[in-house]
C-alpha cells in the first residue's frame, strides 16, 4: 500500500531523516515511535507531501509522491501535530471548507459532516469557533478534518499528545474503530499507546530505523531477556548464589541489599529460556523459605530506552 524507500531529509547541515525504508500493508495500523526530535514528524510531513524529500522515494499504491502529489493527498487524511486549524472559523464552516476543497459533491457534504461529527463526538461544538475549543475537542475536530472524505490512509501526528487520560482513551477508541477498515500511520512517544493500538511499530532514533516489527514480535525477540526475582528467608546469600547459578538457563545472579534477614536475588535468564521450573525444583530441595518468586519480562518501555539510548 505504502512503500517508502531510502527517505532522507536534510535541513542545512542537519540530517533529520537518514535513509528510512518501510512498507505499510493495507488495513495495518503502524506506530511511529521515537524520542522527541527523532524525525517522526519530518517523515510524516514528507509522506503527506508537505515537505519534499532530499532523496528517496515514497509510493502510495502505484503513485509516486514526486509525480502525483495531488492524487496522493486526495487519498490521504492528515492530522498535523497539535491540530493547527483556523482559529476564527466555526467548526461546521471549517469542515464544509475542507469538504469543498477535497471536491466532495454538495449533497454528500452535509450528510458526511453530520456522520463524521457523530463519529468524533463534536456535535455539540459545531457552531463554536475552533479557537475557543479545549485541546481535546480541537484534536477531535482535527480528526474529523482528516477523515471527512473517507480517505484510504490516515496519517496522524501525535494524536493524543497533551490530552488528559480520558481523552486519550477516547481518541484511541476512535482510531481503533476506524482502523478496522483503513491504513493508519500514527506517531507517538508514548509506548503503551503504541502497544495498545498498533499492529506494528517502527522505532525511529536519530533519523534512522532502530526497530521494525510487529508489537508482539518486538516483545518476544527483544523482551526474551526476562528476569526472575526471588526473596528467600533462612538462606545463606553465598550458598544461594552458588546453588542457583548452577541451574541451566540462568545467565547471572545479582544480589540485592538484604533486609530483615531476607535474601533477595535477581536471576537473569538466558534469551529464549524459561528456567523457572528448574529454579523452583532447586529451591524445594533446600530448607529455605520462599517468600516471593516472580518473573519480569522486559517491557516495550525498556526496549525503547535501550534502542534509543544516547550513546
Amino acid at each position, binding site marked *: 500500500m505504502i512503500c517508502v524507500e531510502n527517505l532522507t531529509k536534510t535541513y542545512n547541515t542537519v540530517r533529520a531523516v537518514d535513509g528510512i525504508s518501510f512498507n505499510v500493508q493495507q488495513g495495518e495500523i503502524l506506530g511511529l515511535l521515537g524520542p522527541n526530535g527523532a524525525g517522526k514528524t519530518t517523515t510524516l510531513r514528507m509522506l503527506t*507531501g508537505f515537505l*519534499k524529500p532530499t532523496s528517496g522515494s515514497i509510493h502510495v499504491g502505484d503513485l509516486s509522491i514526486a509525480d502525483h*502529489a495531488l*492524487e496522493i*493527498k486526495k487519498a490521504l487524511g492528515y492530522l498535523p501535530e497539535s*491540530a493547527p*486549524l483556523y*482559529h476564527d472559523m466555526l467548526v461546521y464552516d471549517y469542515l464544509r*471548507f475542507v469538504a469543498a476543497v*477535497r471536491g466532495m459533491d454538495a449533497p454528500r457534504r452535509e450528510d458526511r459532516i453530520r456522520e463524521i461529527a457523530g463519529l468524533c463526538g463534536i456535535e455539540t461544538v459545531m457552531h463554536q469557533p475552533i479557537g475557543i475549543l479545549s485541546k481535546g475537542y480541537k484534536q477531535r475536530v482535527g480528526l474529523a478534518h482528516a477523515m471527512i472524505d473517507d480517505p484510504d490512509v490516515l496519517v496522524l501526528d501525535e494524536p493524543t499528545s497533551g490530552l488528559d487520560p480520558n481523552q486519550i482513551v477516547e481518541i484511541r477508541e476512535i482510531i481503533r474503530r476506524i482502523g478496522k477498515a483503513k491504513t493508519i500511520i500514527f506517531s507517538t512517544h508514548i509506548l503503551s499507546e503504541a502497544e495498545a493500538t498498533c499492529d506494528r511499530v517502527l522505532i525511529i532514533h536519530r533519523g534512522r530505523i532502530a526497530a521494525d516489527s510487529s508489537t508482539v514480535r518486538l516483545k518476544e525477540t527483544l523482551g526474551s531477556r526476562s528476569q526472575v526475582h526471588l526473596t528467600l528467608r533462612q538462606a545463606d546469600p553465598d550458598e544461594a548464589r552458588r546453588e542457583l547459578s548452577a541451574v541451566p538457563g540462568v545467565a547471572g545472579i545479582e544480589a540485592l541489599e538484604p533486609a530483615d534477614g531476607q535474601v533477595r536475588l535477581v536471576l537473569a535468564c538466558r534469551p529464549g529460556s524459561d528456567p523457572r521450573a528448574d529454579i523452583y525444583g532447586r529451591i524445594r530441595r533446600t530448607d529455605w523459605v520462599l517468600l516471593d518468586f516472580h518473573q519480569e519480562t522486559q517491557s516495550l518501555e525498556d526496549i525503547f530506552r535501550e534502542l534509543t539510548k544516547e550513546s
Partner: protein
Amino acid sequence: MRQALSICRKEFNSYFTSPIAYIVIAIFLLVTGWFFFATFFLFNQASLRNFFSLLPSVFAFVVPAVTMRQLAEEFNVGSYETLLTLPVQFTDVVVGKFLAGVAFIAAMLVPTLAYPVTVALLGSLDWGPVAGGYLGAVALGAAFAAIGLFASAVTRNQIVAFIVGLAICFALTLVDQVAIFMPAGFTAVFTYLAVDVHFQNIAKGVIDTRDIVYFASLCFIGLYATHLALRSKT
C-alpha cells in the same frame, strides 16, 4: 481551480469574522472621505479627480493591511500545514488568497460609490472618468494585493508583512516623484515604473493597453514571487 475558489470564498468570509475588515474599511472611508470633501467645494468642479488622485497613496497603506495576515498568520498558527496537505497546489493557495484580497478591496470601494452619486446630484458629472477610475482602482488594488501577499509570504509576523508590503507599494507610488533627480536616461524608466502615472491615465477614462499590461505584470510578478516563496519552504 475549484480548490482556488473554495480557498477564496473561505478567505473572503474570514475577513468579516474578525474585526480587521471593519476597521480597515472604516479607516479607508474616513481618510478618503475627509481628503475628498475637505477641498471639494473650493474647486467648484463636479468631478472625482481629487478622490482618485489620492487613491494610490491611501491604497499603499490600506492594501498591505488587508493582505498582511493572509499567509503570515497561517505560518504562525501552523494551519499552513493543514492547508497544504489538502489536495491543493501552491497555485490554488496563491490564486485563492489573491482573489479574496481583490474581492475585499472591491467590497471596500462599494461604499465610496456614494461620492459620485452625491456629486452627480450637485452638478453634472461625467461618468466616463468615474467608471475608468473605479476600474483603475480595482486594477491598482489587485497589483498591491499581489505585492502584499508576497510580503505576507516571506514572514510569519504580520507587522513585518505589513511594513514590507507598505514599503514596496509606497515606493511604487512615489517613484515618479524622484524621477527628476535621476540622470536623464533613467527618467523614462522611473516614470514607467510609477503606479501613479498608469493609474491616473485610466482614471482619466483612457483605457490604454500599456496601463493594463503594467498592472497585469505587477500582479503576475507579485503572485509568482509568492509562489516561489512558498515553494522554498518545502
